[in-house]
């Protein structure tokens, strides 16, 4: 049974048209992450939430925003997608506190920008 669910799996948008990707989890994990993965590259962390605390990576463009209205859901908003934002976007979760364990990933949302 899927524990980290991302919607939609595939999203096509036009240049400059805002898009929102969603992520939900049934693991009750404290931490939720958003990664960007471009073709043939490793995932790159955009930001993460530890409970309600938002942590932005220093090199994440302002064009990318996130919301976490409750423990189970997290959204990635791309305000004005450019061609360079076409990528797979991966949501992940992990427990907070104690020794670091693994991250649990969703299936990803592939964004195409026309």
């Amino acid at each position, binding site marked *: 049974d899927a524990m980290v669910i991302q919607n939609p799996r595939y999203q096509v948008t036009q240049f400059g048209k805002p898009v929102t990707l969603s992520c939900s989890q049934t693991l009750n994990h404290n931490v939720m992450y958003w990664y960007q993965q471009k073709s043939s590259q490793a*995932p790159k*962390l955009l930001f993460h939430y530890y409970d309600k605390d938002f942590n932005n990576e220093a090199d994440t463009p302002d064009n990318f925003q996130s919301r976490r209205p409750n423990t189970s859901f997290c959204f990635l908003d791309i305000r004005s997608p450019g061609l360079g934002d076409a990528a797979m976007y*991966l949501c992940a979760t992990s427990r907070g506190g104690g020794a670091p*364990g693994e*991250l649990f*990933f969703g*299936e990803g949302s592939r964004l195409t920008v026309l």
Partner: protein
Amino acid sequence: AQSVTQLDSQVPVFEEAPVELRCNYSSSVSVYLFWYVQYPNQGLQLLLKYLSGSTLVESINGFEAEFNKSQTSFHLRKPSVHISDTAEYFCAVRSLAAGNKLTFGGGTRVLVKP
């Protein structure tokens, strides 16, 4: 700062032959190591992990990896690969000193040939 190097970007291998994917990390403190597998257009799935204890860890589908602290390595091996093992493999490291962030290597694409 922590970093992960996967020395081989692509590894072609014949079916039923052994394979080794190399991974070296740099971190000055205790680390937690992971191998993830990614099939086309899917998210990342945990293959195996080293958190503590025995330095040799195994997965349910025949992969194993050995944590070698002196060589700062966590190489992945499988004695006999199947066509279904064709995928991208990512080595990753977490440490408390790096804020618990998961840092990925560049990935190794394994292509199993019949």
